[in-house]
C-alpha cells in the first residue's frame, strides 16, 4: 500500500495531464456530437422524404464504420485532401461525428415520443416548423432524452481513450507510456482505472438524478 501511494505521488502529475486531455476530448466531442445529432434528428423527422432519407443514410454510414477507422480517416487521410488537423482536433471531430449517430437516434426517439397533438396545437396557433420545435417539441423531448444522454456521456468518456490510437496522450495512453518505461503496471493501471472511475461518478449520478425525475409524471 505504501509503495502504491509513493507511486501515486510520483505518477499522478503526469497522469493528470492525461486527464486534462481526456476531459478536453470528451467535452469537445460531446458538444460536437450533440449539435450534429440534433441536426440529424431534426432532418430525420422531417416530412420531406429527401431530407429524412439523407439523414438516415448519414446515420447508417457513421454507425457502420468503427470509431477507430473514422479517427484514422480524419487524422491520416484528411491531410492528403489538404486538411491537416492536430491529433487533438482530429480526435474531437472523429469522436464527435462517430457519436452523433447515436445521439441522433436518441434525440429522434425523444422527438417522436411527443404527442402529435402537441405539434398540431402549436401549428394551430400559427407556429412555423422551427418555432414548434424550439418552443414545444424540444423542451418536452429533453426530459425524455436526458437519461440516455447521460449514458452516452459515460460511454464517450471511456471511448475518448480511442484518441490514443492517433497519438493523443490522454489518460489511457499516458498510463501505458509510464507503465512501459517503469514496469509498475499494477500501480499505474490501478491509478488509471481509478481516475476514470472518479470522472464517471458525477455522470452516473447525473443519470440517476434524471432517471428518478423522469419516472415522476
Amino acid at each position, binding site marked *: 500500500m505504501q509503495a502504491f501511494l509513493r507511486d501515486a505521488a510520483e505518477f499522478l502529475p503526469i497522469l493528470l495531464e492525461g486527464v486534462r486531455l481526456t476531459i478536453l476530448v470528451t467535452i469537445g466531442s460531446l458538444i460536437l456530437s450533440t449539435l450534429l445529432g440534433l441536426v440529424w434528428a431534426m432532418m430525420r423527422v422531417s416530412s420531406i422524404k429527401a431530407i429524412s432519407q439523407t439523414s438516415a443514410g448519414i446515420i447508417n454510414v457513421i454507425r457502420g464504420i468503427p470509431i477507430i477507422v473514422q479517427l484514422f480517416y480524419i487524422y491520416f487521410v484528411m491531410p492528403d485532401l489538404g486538411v491537416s488537423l492536430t491529433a487533438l482536433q482530429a480526435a474531437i471531430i472523429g469522436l464527435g461525428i462517430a457519436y452523433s449517430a447515436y445521439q441522433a437516434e436518441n434525440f429522434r426517439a425523444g422527438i417522436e415520443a411527443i404527442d402529435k*397533438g402537441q405539434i*398540431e*396545437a402549436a401549428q*394551430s396557433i*400559427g*407556429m*412555423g416548423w422551427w418555432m414548434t420545435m424550439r418552443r414545444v417539441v424540444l423542451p*418536452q423531448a429533453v426530459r425524455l432524452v436526458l437519461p440516455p444522454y447521460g449514458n452516452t456521456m459515460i460511454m464517450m468518456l471511456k471511448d475518448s481513450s480511442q484518441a490514443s490510437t492517433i497519438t493523443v496522450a490522454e489518460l489511457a495512453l499516458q498510463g501505458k507510456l509510464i507503465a512501459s518505461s517503469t514496469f509498475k503496471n499494477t500501480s499505474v493501471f490501478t491509478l488509471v482505472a481509478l481516475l476514470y472511475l472518479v470522472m464517471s461518478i458525477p455522470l452516473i449520478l447525473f443519470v440517476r438524478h434524471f432517471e428518478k425525475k423522469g419516472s415522476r409524471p
Partner: protein
Amino acid sequence: MIELKGVRKSYGSFEVLKGISASVEKGEVVCIIGPSGSGKSTILRCINGLESYNSGDILVEGQRVDRDARSIISIRTQVSMVFQRFNLFPHRTVLENVIEGPVFVKKEPRREAIERARLLLAQVGLAEKADAYPPQLSGGQQQRVAIARALAMQPKAILFDEPTSALDPELVGEVLGVMRKLADDGMTMVVVTHEMGFAKEVADRVLFIDGGVIVEQGPSKDVLNQPQHARTQDFLRRVLHPL
C-alpha cells in the same frame, strides 16, 4: 367568412371528403354532426390547414387555405382550434399556454398579452389557476384553458373538434357553458359535437355529414327536430336513444 367549395380529400385511395360545399357567416354558430369516421374532424383540419385537400377551395375571409403556402400562418392566427384532447403544452403554466401565441407568433408585448390572458382566464372561470400546470387540472379545466388559449389569438372564428368528448359527464356542462357564452358574444364558431342539446339551443345551423358528403343542412331546430333524410333520422335516433 369561411367558405368551402367542392372540397375533396383522400387518404390514399380512400376518399374521406367527397365534395363538401358549405359556408359559415360572421357571427354564426354551425354544428357539424354525423357518425364516427364520416369526415367531421377532417373538415375542420382542412379549414385551418392541419391537413391538405386534393381539390376544391377553402376560403377564409376570401383568402385561399393552402397548407404549404406562407399565408397559412396568417390564416391560423385568424382561425383558432380547440381539440378533443385539449393539447395544452404540459411544460408551460396555464398563463404561459395562453400567451404563447400572442407573444411568440404575433409578437405582442408580453405585458399586454399577460393582461389579456388574465382577463380571458377570468372569463373561463380559471383566474386562480394561472400558475398551475395543465396536468394538475381536471379535463374540464384544461379544455377551458384551451378555449382561453384559442381566444388569446383574437381569432375571427374558432373551430371546436368534439370539445367535450374526452370529458367525464359531470364536466361537460362547464365547457359547454363557456362555449355558449362565446356564442352569445357573437363569436363565429364551427363545432363538431355529439351534444345534441348544445346544437339545438346554441347553433344557428347544423350540418349532418355521412360518408364524406353533407347529407342535410339547415337551421338547427329544423334538422334536429324534423330531419328530412332517412340517414339523418336514423343517426339522431341512435344518438338520442342509444338503448
